[in-house]
């Protein structure tokens, strides 16, 4: 519950160690609230959750947790170096370790040249980079990133992608919450879709593309009876002009469909199957009218 409104209800998901997990959903679906519950910032009215085997909110367990809040901001009178020192010390790092770690992190997130500038003069993108830096300063086992590419230019997005992969390579788990489906598609091992506070689908992006293919075919003289016949074999067939579009779950059915078209007397010039993108799946699951 969030105030008097139910933000998350019946949310059930498992994130495995060492994977990059994407959390997708439209605005107001409960993504940020879910992250906040996992971090102990918000108390659920019911249910339980564990992070790294300990109940959420456990203070000591936070040594192994990094978090980049959505729209990161901090004391604007600090310099970038001071901010990372402060967060490192809060994570229990020694001043000696921080002397080498802070320049490393500033380099990693691409703001080493602004190390001694105060945050007051930072752009949104620079703040976001610094926010990512504070989430990683103590090399946590799990990193929660809430819209990490928000406000970043294309180079910044690539940097975030590289940083996320580097976390996986060192064995850390990344929990990524984003609207940018293409980013998630490139980066994540697994995704979960959340709508109205409930997980409505899971997808492993390492082993399969999201639910089949979208097929576009150039077909002439297609009789209406053949279109009706197609409806039994494919999803949502549409024929306009000379363009026939439909969806299939596997490319294996395509030869049979071409045979059917030819047998009906149609002229088949071209058949192009395209894997369904995460965006197609997202729209299908969440509904076009909800908006991103």
């Amino acid at each position: 519950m969030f105030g008097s409104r139910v933000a998350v209800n019946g949310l059930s998901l498992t994130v495995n160690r060492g994977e990059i997990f994407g959390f997708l959903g439209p605005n107001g679906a409960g993504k940020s609230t879910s992250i906040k519950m996992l971090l102990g910032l918000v108390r659920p009215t019911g249910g339980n959750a564990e992070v790294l085997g300990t109940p959420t909110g456990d203070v000591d367990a936070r040594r192994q947790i990094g978090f980049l809040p959505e729209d990161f901001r901090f004391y604007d009178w600090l310099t970038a170096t001071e901010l990372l020192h402060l967060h490192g010390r809060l994570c229990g790092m020694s001043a000696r370790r921080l002397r080498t770690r802070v320049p490393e992190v500033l380099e990693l997130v691409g703001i080493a040249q602004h190390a001694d500038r105060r945050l007051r003069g930072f752009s949104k993108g620079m703040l976001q980079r610094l926010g990512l830096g504070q989430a990683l300063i103590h090399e946590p086992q799990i990193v929660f990133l809430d819209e990490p590419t928000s406000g970043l230019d294309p180079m910044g997005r690539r940097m975030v992608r590289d940083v996320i992969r580097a976390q996986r390579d060192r064995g850390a788990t990344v929990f990524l919450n984003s609207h940018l489906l293409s980013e998630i598609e490139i980066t994540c091992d697994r995704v979960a879709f959340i709508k109205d506070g409930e997980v409505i689908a899971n997808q492993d992006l390492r082993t399969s593309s999201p639910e089949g293919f979208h097929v576009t075919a150039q077909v002439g003289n297609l009789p209406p009876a053949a279109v009706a016949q197609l409806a039994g074999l494919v999803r949502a067939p549409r024929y306009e002009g000379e363009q026939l579009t439909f969806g299939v779950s596997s490319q294996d059915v395509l030869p049979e469909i071409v045979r059917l078209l030819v047998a009906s007397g149609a002229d088949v010039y071209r058949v192009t199957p395209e894997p369904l993108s995460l965006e197609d799946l997202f729209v299908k699951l969440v509904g076009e009218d909800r908006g991103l």
Partner: protein
Amino acid sequence: MSGIWIMAGVTLREAARRKILWTAMLAAVLLLAIFAVALRFQVLEFEGRPMSPFVRYQVESGMLMIGLYTCDLLAVVMTILTSIDTLAGEISSGTIHAIATKPIARWQILAGKFLGFTAMVTAYVAITFWSTVAVAFVVTGVLPEHPFHGMVLIIAECIVALSVTFLLGTRFSTLTCGVLALGLQGVAFMGGWLEQVSGFSQSTQIVTLGVFSSLIMPSESLWRRAAYEMQTPLAGSLSFSPFANVSIPSMTAVVYAGGYFVFMLGAAMYSLHRRDL
């Protein structure tokens, strides 16, 4: 515990780098300058006419109390204004998310900030208080009766106001928090004056109302106790002034203020611990 010290350190650094403390310090310097000039004019005026040293001492002591009262008011207002945003602002802007997810308990965040502000307020009061005393001594040769007791009570008054501001900051926006904290300070001020009225009014209802106001917000009663400690016995007997000792807050009132502070700080910690961020 180290988290508390880290937060206290960053709070102190914040105070030093933001303009508000230095603005308050500048205000104190201006008031001190006006105070010094006024005192000097008074001394010159006294030198121009025959005057009993006893009366002269009483008047100059009274003027010193005015200076210290100004110093006290400025310290309380500065305490409220500098601390008003520290929790409320960070909660509403989400700045606190990056800290509250670190391995530090929420009560430690609050305790650290509180310690930082306490150190800042203590330094501010010490500087302005002793500067006022020094100016008065240099110009007139007069010293307050128990300056150390007085200073500690003024610092305690600021810390009580700070605990109220912190509690409000865990639940309200910066603006609401500021209005409520200054409003409560107004209640305390009114309570103090109502109790003073008892100097020539026999209305027990007025006194009761004054005591009730002081129970709601006991900061002003700490000042009145400070004034009692610092002024000459004769000055205290002049009934209608902010410094009169017609109804001196007893040690019970001071202990009550201590209990009030502990309750407010504890409630602030609990409130921050329980709320969603």
